[in-house]
């Protein structure tokens, strides 16, 4: 397990170093390019605000009212059979529907349970390991006018389910075995 943790720590500096040296070798104006790309990051962070506000408010209304407790109480026996914490199930469902919605739920789970808790790590992995099937389907097929999508949705949703289960397995295995 030590290897996994040092891999995570070393991976990013090594990748950054490699990109910087490769860019320099290819005569890219590194600093100016960095600034140019950074501006995109700034606008993404700003653009995301309304999505996050909308979703976090809805989640906290749902939770503060006690509705979430009822849902989890009802679901708990089913998921505890498979050692799935009921708290992440709404995230798993949301992940396929809305990327920003899922992001809101993930940050809510991290805020509530702490980033380094089992649920915090699990939410992080679920958020990072799949993409929003409905969004990808809408954007990609919509852009080129595909109306009959045949078995595409089934494949996408099953892949999401696999990603969800694989996240649980990966976190349990790497951190809590």
């Amino acid at each position, binding site marked *: 397990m030590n290897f996994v943790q040092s891999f995570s720590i070393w991976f990013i500096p090594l990748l950054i170093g490699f990109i910087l040296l*490769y860019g320099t070798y290819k005569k890219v104006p590194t600093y100016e390019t960095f600034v140019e790309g*950074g501006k995109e990051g700034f606008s993404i*962070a700003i653009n995301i605000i309304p999505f996050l506000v909308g979703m976090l408010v809805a989640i906290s209304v749902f939770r503060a009212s006690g509705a979430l407790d009822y849902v989890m109480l009802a679901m708990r026996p089913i998921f505890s059979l498979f050692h799935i914490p009921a708290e992440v199930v709404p995230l798993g469902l949301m992940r396929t529907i*809305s990327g920003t919605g899922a992001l809101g739920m*993930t940050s809510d789970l991290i805020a509530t349970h702490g980033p380094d808790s089992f649920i915090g790590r699990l939410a992080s992995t679920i958020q*990072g390991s799949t993409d929003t099937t409905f969004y990808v389907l809408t954007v990609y097929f919509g852009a080129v006018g595909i109306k009959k999508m*045949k*078995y595409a949705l089934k494949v996408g949703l099953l892949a999401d389910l696999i990603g969800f289960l694989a*996240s649980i397995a990966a976190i349990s295995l790497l951190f809590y075995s």
Partner: protein
Amino acid sequence: MVNYIWVGMMVIGFAVAAFNGNMDKVNAAIFTSAKEAVTLSFAMISILVFWLGIMKIAEKGGLLEVLAYLFRPIVKWLFPDIPKDHPAQGYILSNMAANLLGLGNAATPMGIKAMEQLKILNGGKNEASRSMITLLAINTSSITLIPTTIIAIRMSYNSQSPTDIVAPTLLATAVATVGAILIDRYYYYRSLQKGGK
């Protein structure tokens, strides 16, 4: 779909609060969570600016093309019905490479370009072709090397080790992608057996 879920969470929340008699808590939750969302977005600016800056260097330096070259054999296997050296291949490869680097914004336009080419290959029909669905499957399970946004959120909540989810994410995303490809193949052969193309 998101619209119904969003309204549903709010309205059910209000109804349950009325039933439980804790509307005051709900009132407070609305305003603290709205504020928290804005704070969170601002906390994320630092890492998003940094990482997208670095990634721009990778893109300009031509690392996308290097990755595309490395993955050529895989693309041949995944998309057997695309003719050799067809432009669709290049777009698919760039799409996969951009996804790998976590460049979601760069991946989408390349994916759309690839879809356009695949539609031409499919005779311009408004029906999804085998390759289109494969490309979609790969995108929805998106292999990601660096989950930037998540790392940013973890940092803003004072994680002791914000990047320690990189390895499990890689593992989970790899499993999901392999799974997506296998499921895609399964449904493709099943649709052949049913007699439809």
